[in-house]
């Protein structure tokens, strides 16, 4: 998930989430950066409203279904 955290960090710094900014952060964390993963990340995030995407629950709900009314 480190690439995602990097993107979130850059986003929360109100900077543009691009290859350069993500790489800089990953490197600072001591992570050997994989260029194609960074590219894939940036491509996936293109056009995405990050604020909305982080607050929209994505996980399959883990819960039990409700009792019948």
């Amino acid at each position: 998930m480190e690439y995602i955290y990097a993107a979130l960090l850059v986003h929360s710094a109100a900077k543009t989430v691009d290859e350069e900014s993500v790489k800089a952060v990953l490197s600072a964390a001591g992570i050997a950066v994989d260029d194609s993963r960074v590219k894939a990340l940036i491509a996936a995030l293109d056009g995405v409203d990050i604020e909305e995407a982080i607050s929209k629950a994505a996980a399959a709900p883990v819960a039990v279904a409700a009792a019948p009314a």
Partner: protein
Amino acid sequence: MAIYTHHLPAWKREEVEQIKDLADKYALVGLVDVYGIPARQFQQIRRNLRSNAVVKVARNTLVEHSMNELGGHFVDLNGKVSEHSALIFANGNPFKLFKSLEQTKTKRSAKAGEITPEDIVVPAGPTTFKPGPIVGELQQAGIPAAIDGGKVKIKETKTVVKAGEAINKKQADVLSKLGIKPMPVGLSLLAVCYEGDLYLPDVLSVDDEAYKAKITLAAQQAFNLAVNAAVPTACVGVTEAQIAKAVREARNLGVEASIYEKGVIELIISKAYRQANALKAI
């Protein structure tokens, strides 16, 4: 101040120099409240802290004197000097020092007139008391009590004193008899001077649980982002969740648009049946 300094007797001069030396040696200079700590426990706390911190008890006038001579932000500490304060010197993170001091705190019985820092709750249930005047004492302290099976029993769980309120004599006596110790004993940081800044307890008190909750939230956000934006991530659960999301979307579309395909037909039947049922119920 400089003039006054010249008039200090030698032993006072020496003590001021000692304090100034400690302030040089340690990154952090603070004040702790040592009120109500029995001598033996105080020694114990000092021993426990030895590797991390030094506590020095000195006359307030000498503390103030030393801080004035140190100048800068140290002078700000003078405003926090109190009747029961002592100096503390340590290295490193003031937040960690605060936490470690909190962790070494123990509890003692309350004395009349003291203000409790937390709600004092007496739980319902049997006590070890034999019937006697204690029943009346409990009731006078606001604790409903009765005799039950030859013992005194507390009838219902009761908040006897609320946080921030003073404990009266009757309450203090009864709580003591019940073995309830509401008063924290230990060093309480009053203020810290560290790297040129003054830190007060309200800032130094960090809520671990809040941070934990934030980490959980951040992890959830990362997961949501990865799934919602379909970021390819070789991370347990993310790819599965992306697939699940795509499947659900396809299924939702299938049902909403009544696309008769394997995999959704059962759901469409189900929907029709539920609609019929709802209509039937009217």
